[in-house]
């Protein structure tokens, strides 16, 4: 697949369709793959990568890239196309400056998940069919791919590309995932248990803003938390609540717009399962206002910017079962 | 079982709110048994509202109602007079402690032309 993609990219560069290509290249470690823009065939040959470790969602980069001169070729995974489509809906990307090639995704290996399985001193990783071979300081280890994938890939919502100019490989389908299982589990806990759970998670936040910076829904020109006029700009946290407020407001701001790509949890250096906040909103929206998948289509109104006269009253949350 | 049947009992059994009535008389205008009845559908509504239950309990009118529900169907205010008639009937039956129509008597009165619905309705009316 990687070879094919490089060839196609070269061809599009050569015939002048595009003048840049956004894809992935190796970072400091070879399992640490980062997004990159290539402008020549030589650069592509030297650095372009596509494998089961290429996890980053490229759509957010296209906000800036699409505003530049000429067209850019973007390779988008199914997940990324949802974010891309949502950004189009919000007029954030200049569509005619992007040439989208949909590429298949079989789920990405996540280094933190591998580490959590007790493998340490990782030097490099390589996917070999259903097995991941991990080279460590202490010798090679192997782990099943299923065990090396993060939650977002294990509970993949869709293998379908919602936007593309051309497609490589087979088109997939929207999947029946179990992505709300954990949210439901939390909902069924007592408030005390939930409180304990979230205290355990959120107390680790170091407010590095990685979640915000990577999120394809957090694309504000200036974040409200950096906006002096908003009244809540923070130079330094006033008190311990400040970070909670940040996470709640951030989740609220992306509610109805979050495509559930899971980048926030992937990049969190403290491994806080932030996607569980977003999924709670998605689940509530689905249950209260009808199924809604952000980015799935260009026309439906975002659930928070519309209403019906028969909407549930806010008291519905006092009545809903399972969380007494 | 000597409890006095009150307006509240009738309202509870029937689920009817007679205050919704605007006295148009369409129920009585539409009633096919009107001439058989001493008290007419609109009077049931009016009298129940005024608490005049006793005369209704004693009246034969409650057995003249065919349960055709024309009054219920056509009432512009959704008052449902037939349900009041039915409630009075039930109150009488409960006091008497006996059925007017017993299953064993049915074969005698059964007529091939009688619609199924009427039999069910009769059961509802004349038995507990």
């Amino acid at each position, binding site marked *: 697949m990687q070879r094919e993609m490089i060839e196609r990219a070269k061809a599009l560069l050569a015939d002048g369709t595009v003048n840049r290509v956004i894809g992935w290249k190796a970072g400091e470690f070879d399992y640490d793959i980062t997004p990159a823009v290539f402008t020549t065939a030589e650069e592509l040959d030297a650095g372009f990568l596509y494998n089961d470790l290429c996890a980053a969602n490229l759509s957010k980069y296209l906000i800036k890239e699409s505003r530049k001169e000429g067209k850019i070729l973007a390779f988008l995974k199914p997940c990324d196309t949802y974010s891309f489509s949502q950004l189009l809906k919000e007029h954030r990307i200049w569509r005619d400056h992007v040439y989208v090639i949909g590429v298949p995704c079989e789920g990405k290996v996540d280094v933190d998940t591998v580490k959590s399985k007790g493998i340490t001193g990782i030097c490099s990783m390589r996917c070999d069919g259903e097995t991941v071979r991990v080279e460590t300081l202490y010798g090679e280890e192997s782990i099943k791919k299923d065990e090396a994938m993060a939650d977002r890939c294990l509970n993949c919502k869709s293998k379908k590309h919602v936007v593309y100019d051309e497609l490589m490989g087979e088109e997939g389908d929207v999947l029946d995932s179990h992505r709300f299982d954990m949210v439901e589990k939390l909902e069924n806990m007592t408030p005390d248990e939930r409180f304990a759970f979230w205290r355990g998670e959120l107390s680790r936040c170091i407010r590095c803003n990685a979640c915000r910076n990577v999120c394809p829904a957090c694309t*504000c020109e200036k974040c409200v938390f950096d*906006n002096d006029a908003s009244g809540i700009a923070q130079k330094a946290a006033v008190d311990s609540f400040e970070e909670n407020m940040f996470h709640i407001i951030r989740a609220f701001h992306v509610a109805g717009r979050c495509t559930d790509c899971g980048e926030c949890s992937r990049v969190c250096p403290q491994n806080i399962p932030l996607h569980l906040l977003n999924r709670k909103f998605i689940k509530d929206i689905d249950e209260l206002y009808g199924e809604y998948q952000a980015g799935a289509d260009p026309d439906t109104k975002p659930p928070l910017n519309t209403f019906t006269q028969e909407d549930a009253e806010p008291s519905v949350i006092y009545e809903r079962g399972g969380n007494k | 079982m000597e409890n006095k049947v009150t307006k509240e009992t009738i309202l509870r059994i029937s689920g009817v709110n007679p205050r919704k009535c605007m006295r*148009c*008389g369409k129920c009585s205008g*539409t009633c096919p048994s009107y001439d058989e009845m001493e008290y007419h559908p609109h009077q049931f509504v009016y009298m129940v509202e005024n608490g005049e239950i006793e005369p209704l309990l004693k009246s034969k009118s409650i057995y003249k109602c065919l349960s055709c529900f024309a009054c219920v169907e056509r009432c512009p205010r959704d008052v449902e007079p037939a349900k009041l008639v039915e409630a009075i009937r039930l109150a009488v039956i409960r006091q008497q402690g006996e059925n007017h129509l017993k299953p064993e008597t049915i074969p005698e009165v059964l007529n091939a032309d009688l619609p199924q619905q009427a039999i069910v309705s009769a059961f509802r009316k004349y038995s507990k």
Partner: protein
Amino acid sequence: MQRIGVFICHCGTNIAATVDVKAVAEALKHEPGVVFSTDYPYMCSEAGQNIVKDAIRDYHLSGVVICSCSPRMHEATFRKAAAVAGLNPYMVEIANIREQCSWIHKDIPQATEKAITLGKAAIAKVHLNAPLYAGESPVVKRALVIGGGIAGIQTALDIADAGFPVDIVETKPTIGGKMTQLDKTFPTLDCAACILTPKMVDCAQNENIKIYSYSEVTDVKGFVGNFTVTIKRKARYVDETKCTGCGICTEKCPMKKVPNEFNLGMNNRSAVYIPFAQAVPKVATIDPEHCNMLKKGKCGLCAKVCTAGAIDYKQKDEFIEEQYGAIVVATGYNPINLDKFDEFAYSQSKDVITSLEFERLTNAAGPTSGTLLRPSDGKHPHTIVFVQCVGSRDTSGCGKEYCSKICCMYTAKHAMLTREKYPDTDVYVFYIDVRTPGKSFDEFYRRAVEQYGVHYIKGMVGKIVPQADGTLAVQASDLLDNKQLHINADLVVLAAAIEPDKSARPLATMLTASMDTNDFFTEAHPKLRPVESPTAGVFLSGTCQGPKDIPETVSQAGAAASKVIGLLCKDKLTCNPCVAHSDEWMCNGCSACEKVCPYGAITYEDKEFRMPDRTTAIRRVAIVNEAVCQGCGACTVACPSGAMDLKGFSNSQIMAEVDAICK
């Protein structure tokens, strides 16, 4: 730092009895920025206002906090006082220490403490207040009247008389509306056509009035003083400017079997038609549903006989765009569909008719030339039953919950006229209540009973069964006699409820005007602003606002016209300055705010920006039209970046109040 003055009102003892006003003044004196703090028995009195004015001058105040009654009471008073003293009126904030403090609390220390907190919150807000200036928007001196019935006609005539141009948009080929179909009008029994058609002609001849007949409003943009309206002129396949209304085409047209809507389908018209003799404009219209030429391309007879050469089979719908300063809605009513009332056999028998059909049957221009004949066999009816409240006052879901208001009177009129013209006829009227409030109305109804011998029966018809002999078996109750009546009638007339025209709802959406659950337009205030819609610049005339008879309609039409004239007289409108404002440097152009704006006040623009790194960037940014924005603030919450903020109620101001209260 602001220089703030704080003024505590005693309101006699209303505040001072529960709140220690001196303590409040003293406590607030030490708040940051406060340079003056005092109390006075009646701050809203002239002497009180002078204290405020003097302090503004003497202490060079940049902000004022008044602790007094509700801002809904005296905010305007104090703002005006501040303006007189040279302070921007929007630098005044009110702390409500009467309705929301002294009047509800009994404990003096508690109430005093709360009053201090409320004062602090107001001070915190004033610190962030900025002077606001009310913008102005120009007024287009032209009005649009939607609907050309008596309401629309009267409104248009009154506006035109004041010297302003008015356009009437009417969906039918002629103006005139329902009133053209009526025979006589209660309670004076003058003929509807005799009083209406001169007004229709006035409209046509008035230089200030332009009639768009056979047209519809398809789009409304803009705001009070400056609406842009798209009008669809439906193709009538006749050149209006050439047609002389001679009517030869209608005579020659071979397609004569089209149900005549003007006579409610009781007779036929041709495919090319003029609705009635006095139509305005008096031009023919080709009905494309039935014209052979338009359907099959064969015929063309009308074009051949038209000496004016007005027939144009190739005519297309035309869209025109016009600017208006004010819009009057006069969309009127229709009788409800009676399909849900099987018991009255309306669809089974031709001799069960609606009251409007009865009007046509008695009208000289109607299908029977004014002789009352049964639609089924053309014989004179000898027993006529009128049924009132058919679908009115009905909560069962078949009809309407409201009283249609006009039925009692027109039924009395019908009954009376029948008895007058045909004294050998028995006339029964079944009523639930006879409602005749209005000048000479009850006298009129009593005349029908006493002088003309109409049988008024308190009760309702339960069912009507058509008989083999052509009569109608009417079964009804007589509540006063406690009897069930069986009448063999020749004709039954149903007083069907009236409902707003179907075009009203989509129009309300276009105008962002609100409606009640019955699709009647809502007034800005049910008592004090009955002819204005809550949407500025949109006015209501006639039955689109609620059931009413002709005199009421005409007076409301005049009232709406005077409101419109009052608006059009102004050259400029002052806008509410507490409106949304988007910081274009922070705006993402994501369209979230636009989606929640109920007024369509937000648009987007691709704007060039000089970026800090000296590059130029084109960005999509939101622009708020300050004349349209009403300042609800829905957009401010939809905006994730906080670029959208509301003047006078900004994020930081509200946050400052929260902080002050929670301190």
